[in-house]
């Protein structure tokens, strides 16, 4: 499987992450985050962060807790306003939060964020409700994605009653049902066992093979190594390394900055 990757220089410092990945066609990358700086009160959560995700590329954003990974997602989704910097999706400025789905962007949340009191199927249907689709098409899309994630038998179960791995899959199904072109996954393997993680890796690879770009935050080393084309390492809000999984793994700076990655395994 050959996918375009930014020519990586392991050990290169922040600018490496912000280099745009030139697609063969010269089209703008699916996601382009440039020189992003975010402050919360006195805390600099992101400092001049740049990264790109090309078509069908899987990029892992890793780093210790509090490094600013979720904040990157929040800026891309318009939930946090950056002090400076830009986010472009397919070359255009990122839309308002409620228009993300229209622009083909889906996201899962670190805390799942399922709608309590609704069934699995209802949760998955929500992203389709705002769109001008015939309801039969919507039903079909829901059934298809539930089937793909092995949730069809649980479609009418209240999500509150599902075990954690299944709830996690419902959250993924809800992100996939709109057939996104850019998928942001916040710790998709968190709390899952080995079998579920292996299945998840298959799903992510399948999504990317079909052309969807994936940016994912994950602590789980094996999972990252299995699915990522490129890895961007954040520490204290800065990009400290960027490259293929192997390059990043052997990067001394990464080890120094981010012992937690190995420790978490």
């Amino acid at each position, binding site marked *: 499987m050959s996918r375009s990757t930014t020519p990586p220089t392991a050990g290169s410092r922040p600018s490496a992450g912000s280099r745009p990945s030139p697609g063969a066609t010269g089209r703008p990358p699916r996601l382009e985050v440039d020189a992003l700086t975010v402050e919360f009160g006195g805390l600099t959560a992101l400092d001049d962060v740049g990264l790109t995700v090309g078509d069908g590329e899987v990029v892992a954003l890793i780093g210790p807790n509090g490094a600013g990974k979720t904040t990157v997602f929040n800026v891309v*989704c318009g*939930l946090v306003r950056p002090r400076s910097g830009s986010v472009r999706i397919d070359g255009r400025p990122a839309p308002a*939060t*409620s*228009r*993300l*789905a*229209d622009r083909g962007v889906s*996201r899962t*949340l*670190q*805390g*799942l*964020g399922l*709608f*309590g*009191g*609704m069934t699995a199927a*209802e949760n998955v*249907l*929500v*992203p*389709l*409700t*705002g*769109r001008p689709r015939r*309801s039969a098409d*919507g039903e079909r899309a829901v059934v298809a994605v539930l089937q793909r994630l092995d949730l069809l038998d649980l479609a009418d179960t209240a999500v509150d009653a599902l075990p954690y791995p299944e709830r996690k899959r419902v959250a993924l199904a*809800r992100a996939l049902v*709109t057939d996104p072109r850019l998928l942001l996954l916040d710790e998709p393997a968190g709390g899952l066992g080995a079998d579920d993680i292996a299945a998840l890796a298959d799903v992510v690879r399948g999504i990317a093979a079909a052309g969807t770009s994936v940016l994912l935050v994950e602590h789980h080393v094996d999972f990252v190594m299995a699915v990522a084309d490129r890895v961007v390492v954040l520490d204290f809000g800065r990009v400290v390394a960027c490259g293929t999984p192997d390059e990043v793994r052997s990067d001394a700076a990464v080890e120094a900055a981010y012992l937690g990655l190995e420790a978490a395994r």
Partner: protein
Amino acid sequence: MDRLVLLVSTGVARGLVIALFALSLVIIWRAARIVNFGQAAMAVVAVYVAFAVHAATGSYVLAVLGALVTGALLGLAVERGLMRRVPGATPMPGMIVAIGLVMVLQSLLGVLFGPRHRPMSPVFSQSPLYVGDVPVLSRYDLFVLVVALVVVVGLGLLFNRSTLGLQLRAAAVAPEVSRLLGVRVPRMVTIGWMLSSAVAALAVLLLVPTELGLNAHSADVLFVHAFTVAVLGGLDSPAGALVGGLVVGVLISLVTGYASAGLAPLAVLGLLTTVLLVRPGGIFATKEARTA
């Protein structure tokens, strides 16, 4: 025994009006996380419009439509014009604005129409029907019962079987997540207000013929009962509003019938206190859903 049947069946009809109004409070609570203390005053304004429509056309159906449409438009105006401009981080500012709205609306109605009660004759007779020779509820109570049930079932279908309802529920449960998923949350809040105000207007319109008539304060007691019921049921729970409304309606009817009307408010207060002591979150309250 005959008296019990009459009191209970009448209580059920009265209780359904309370339940409708409580349902309207639940709808707004779920949509906007505020208790709309202005609900009764807004509904009364809508019923004044319904009276005017009735006087002009003689048609009760048009009067009902007038109440519903005016209620919905008032909900729209209050949400877009007032509530949206109030800081929403805590519920207090919104509630204070709602209380201010009550004062303004009731003063305006007082200035425009004076304190007297305008009677409204019910569309159906208020004398009891008989099953065999047992008196049960009146034709009008039966009408109220049917209308209330239709509205409750309709709301149930809307919220649980339609995509609009799904969006309303999603926006109520987790507004931020809903926005991420493309739900137009501000629009859902507005629709929640419109639905809620329309239902409240209908409840007051159904209530007025069974009371002295219409004036600025006609719905005050209904509000207190409905608020009690909404708290009893758990402000989040439509089923709680329904059951609570029926219980309070029957309780008031029985206490009024067997003891005295003056004791009814005390009985309601006793019920509220007992329930809150046993289940502080309300009978039907679910655990607060954790957000992302």
